[in-house]
């Protein structure tokens, strides 16, 4: 099935994308003709068991990986044909990232980490937006600290602020709470949801945690490289139920 956005403008779109790793007997099909749209100003979660292709889908959408077939659009730009230079620029200017491992530069202070993508692009942060973001993530008194002096939750909030600061078209979050305790994770997730609700940020998040997915506006389920289901306005329970259903033999799944 194709996961379509229920009307409204589209921030990112995948059309019939295929991704195959290896060849011959070792061939693994990670994505088999996935089509999906991610609405602007929406918080979408991609879920699925390990090996379902959810990370691959996100990497292809974010221009970190190339697709073997099909097209990917970010806003109005088709990115599946872009070279390294253009992709680098695209990532720099129009995409934000949040990783499971935080991935902060240990040599830079929190503030420097937050402005890093802007610095690379040679742009200045909008002071008003800076105050808003820093205020929202609650890092005001931690800005001069090095990552090693921050807790995991704080580090991830720095990473969130970094992703938000350039006001990218889309933020891709890869298991952002995977390394956090539930309280810190909850903080990060509400903060992400807040940025969607209040500032119209688009976020696509890969997760396998039903609680994390419940913060999203919409959940897309992947299994064996295909989209198998989706859920609007999810709660932890409905997500869990869907997952359980997907885990049982496929013939019993109502699609």
């Amino acid at each position, binding site marked *: 099935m194709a996961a379509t956005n229920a009307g409204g403008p589209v921030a990112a779109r995948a059309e019939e994308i295929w991704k195959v790793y290896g060849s011959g007997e070792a061939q693994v099909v990670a994505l088999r003709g996935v089509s999906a749209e991610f609405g602007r100003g929406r918080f979408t979660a991609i879920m699925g068991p390990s090996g379902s292709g959810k*990370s691959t889908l996100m*990497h292809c959408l974010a221009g*970190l*990986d190339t697709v073997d077939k099909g097209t990917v659009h970010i806003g109005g730009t088709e990115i599946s044909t872009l070279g*390294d*230079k253009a992709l*680098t*620029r695209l*990532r*720099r*200017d129009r995409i934000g*990232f949040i*990783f*499971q*491992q935080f*991935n*902060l*530069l*240990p*040599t*830079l202070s929190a503030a420097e980490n937050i402005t*890093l*993508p802007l*610095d*690379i*692009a*040679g742009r200045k942060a909008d002071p008003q937006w800076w105050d808003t973001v820093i205020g929202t993530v609650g890092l005001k008194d931690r800005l001069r600290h090095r990552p*090693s002096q921050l807790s995991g939750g704080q580090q991830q909030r720095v990473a969130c602020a*970094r992703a938000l600061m350039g006001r990218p078209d889309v933020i891709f979050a*890869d*298991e952002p709470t*995977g390394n956090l305790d539930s309280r810190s994770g909850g903080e990060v997730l509400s903060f992400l949801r807040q940025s969607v609700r209040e500032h119209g940020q688009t976020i696509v998040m890969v997760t396998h945690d039903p609680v994390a997915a419940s913060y999203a506006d919409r959940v897309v389920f992947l299994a064996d490289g295909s989209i198998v289901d989706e859920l609007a306005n999810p709660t932890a329970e409905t997500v869990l139920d869907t997952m359980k259903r997907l885990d049982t033999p496929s013939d019993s799944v109502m699609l």
Partner: protein
Amino acid sequence: MFRATLKSLLARKLRLVLSGLAVILGVMFVSGALVLTDTLNRTFDSIFSDVYAATDVSVTAKPKVEVSEMDGEEVSAPLPASAVETIKTQAGVRSATGRVDADGARVIATDGKVLTSFGPPRIGSNWTGTDEMMEIRSGRGPEAPDEIALNATTAKLAGYAVGDRVPVLTQQPKREFTLVGIWGYTGGRDSISGVQEVAFTTPVAQELMLGEKDVFTSVTVAAADGVTPDQLRDRLAPVLGAGYEVKTGAQLSAEDSASLKEGMGFFNQILLGFAGVALFVGIFLILNTFSIVVAQRTRELALLRAIGASRRQVINSVLVEAVVVGMIASVLGLLAGIGAGAGLGALFSGMSGGMDLAPIGVPLSAVISSFTVGILVTVVAAVMPALRASRIAPVAAMQDVATPDRPLTKLTVAGTVVTAAGAAALGTGLFVASGDSALYLILGGVLVTFIGVALLTPLISRPVVSLLGRLFAWSVPGRLGRLNSGRNPRRTAITAAALMVGIALVTGVTVVMDSAKSSLKAEAARILKAQIMISGDQGGPRPPTYDPAVVDRAEAIPGVRAAAGLYNDLVAIGGERSYIAATEDLSRLAEAYGTTAAKLGADQIAVSAPEAAERNWQAGSQVSIQTSRGEAHTYTVSQVFTEDTLPGSIILPAEAIKGFGITQPVLGFIRLDDGVAVSAVLPQVKALVADSPEVSATDQQTFVDSQAAIFDQIITMIQILLGLAILIAVLGVINTLALSVLERTRELGLLRAVGLGRAQTMRMITVEAVVIAVFGALLGVAVGAGMGSAVARALKDDGITQIVLPWDRMGTYLALAALVGVIAAVLPAIRAARLNVLNAIAHD
């Protein structure tokens, strides 16, 4: 455990290759030196056994002044023709041939230039017919006074054929001969080991080569049938008495060969010295590599500890790795050394004009020392990292890999103590002690300070690297590179220290040499008043000389105020060897030199004040001087002159010159009348020395520059040789960067993900490399300038009166270091730029 070690070793091939390269280069030098020595030794043995193959017994006169060939001193000791007759009449003698055989017969080639020789002598001899080794190639032996024969090497080099007129320089000025014969040696050899030979008739050879009639250099004696050389020697020795040396051919062959080998020892020392530098720098590199390897394997080693490996086993696992690396590097280094030895041997034989090289052999000593040095150096460098590895707590297996930087306290304390001790020794040597003890204190202090600074490098690296980095911090990649270079002070420091060693040595030598050069120039400008000099470059044991008649003719040129020639000889004074000078007329020499002195009488000498003080002579002292030839003569000290007002420290009268080893002047001083331009006279003087191609007439400035040129040559040589140490240091920088890239895979991935372009990534790595390299060079230049100044200061009494810091050269070294950084960064930077972003950020 052993298998686990080997497995992890193979997994890091590239890194080990890089660190192993330093050991390979060091071992290459060691084994190369030994292979070369062995080959040359066998070559010399075979040459001399050839030279003396036709000699049963040889008789020579005991030299009047003891000489050693190692110092390049040549002094002939002629024996009278009567001795040949005496020997002929002895029982057991089949024949006795008087031989003239002396270095210094210089053939002027068809192009008008004197045939040069690096090493093998240019022998002038008397033709005594062919022996069983010689074969006439064309023509015949010389029979008339104006006839000569040449060996085939000389004829070929100079481009002469039988019938040509050949000019030859000897003890006497240029003379022309007709070439009547060319000879070679058995086995198709043109000469024995590239020696150039000119054969005259006996009287001509005596006159030209020895300067006396009826004397010979040696007598070759053939034993009658049934008499062994040893028996013949024992019979002749008592007959001839104490004034003669009687030796068998075998004895002479062994002696000559041994003395040449000794001369080669110096060359060997140089090679081994550079092996030492290479290995010293290599230790830094290996230490760094193993430290990093251990840091990276923290988890793995902790796991081994957690599942029950003992500390000793962990230490052993690191040391086994070191032994394997050392062993492989030794094998490769040995092979490279054999190649280098063979190459140098060929170069050597080429330079000496076709010496027949013995086949290359690999002496056992080369194999043993290669492995000893290679393995020892590697293991020593790995001990510290191994100990550190053993201290990893098992719990580290469960923790995050991040290894916090250990505090530098201990290192800093040690470094400060060592530096302070070195500085104290230096200070004492410079300002308190005097004489030899001062020199030793200074040299020791320099070495200790060197080590102290090396220990302090991590501490210094923090502020300096941060400051240096600011130069590049104008862009984001530059800023990131700067931060990265300051990240691990120890690693940065060790990498930079390796570069420091090479650059400090080069800078130190440069400072000493430039100081010496500038002192020499200043001295020359102060004391040398002669405007025109006659001199030549000495290319062998025999100094270049010119026709004595030139001096008088030069003085006759209008506008010349005075001209004087200077003669040198090695003499014995009270049994001690010294170099002395002589001139035709001291008053003329003084005038040409810009001072005044009285003419010396036939039995009078002039002595400089310091020389007189040292020897405890006063005006009126009686001194017996034995020149190279002739009889000892007693002179009276008639003048004691202020140092530097005349050339040399002991000056003999003209009458002494005939007893000198070389009876022609080696230097000439010409002073012009006031107001006469040098350019007006110089061409005429040049024309006068046209027949003495070994020397040239130059103005004062050119002369001083050419005298100072030797220092530039030494600097160039040191630069080339220490370039090797710098090459090894570059490997260190590459190694460190490659590891940094590897360690920071995730960070690089993130940077690429958030939009750092490939070019920017490369720039970031390059800045890191350049900062490290420039830091090392900066330290090296600073330490080198300090050490060099200290050494130059220590040599104050030896004539280094000025200390010059060569800013331009030091600037060049810094610029080169920056270039080195850029080059070292190429591969790691490409690797970083090619990094797959996905792999870099994907979680485990």
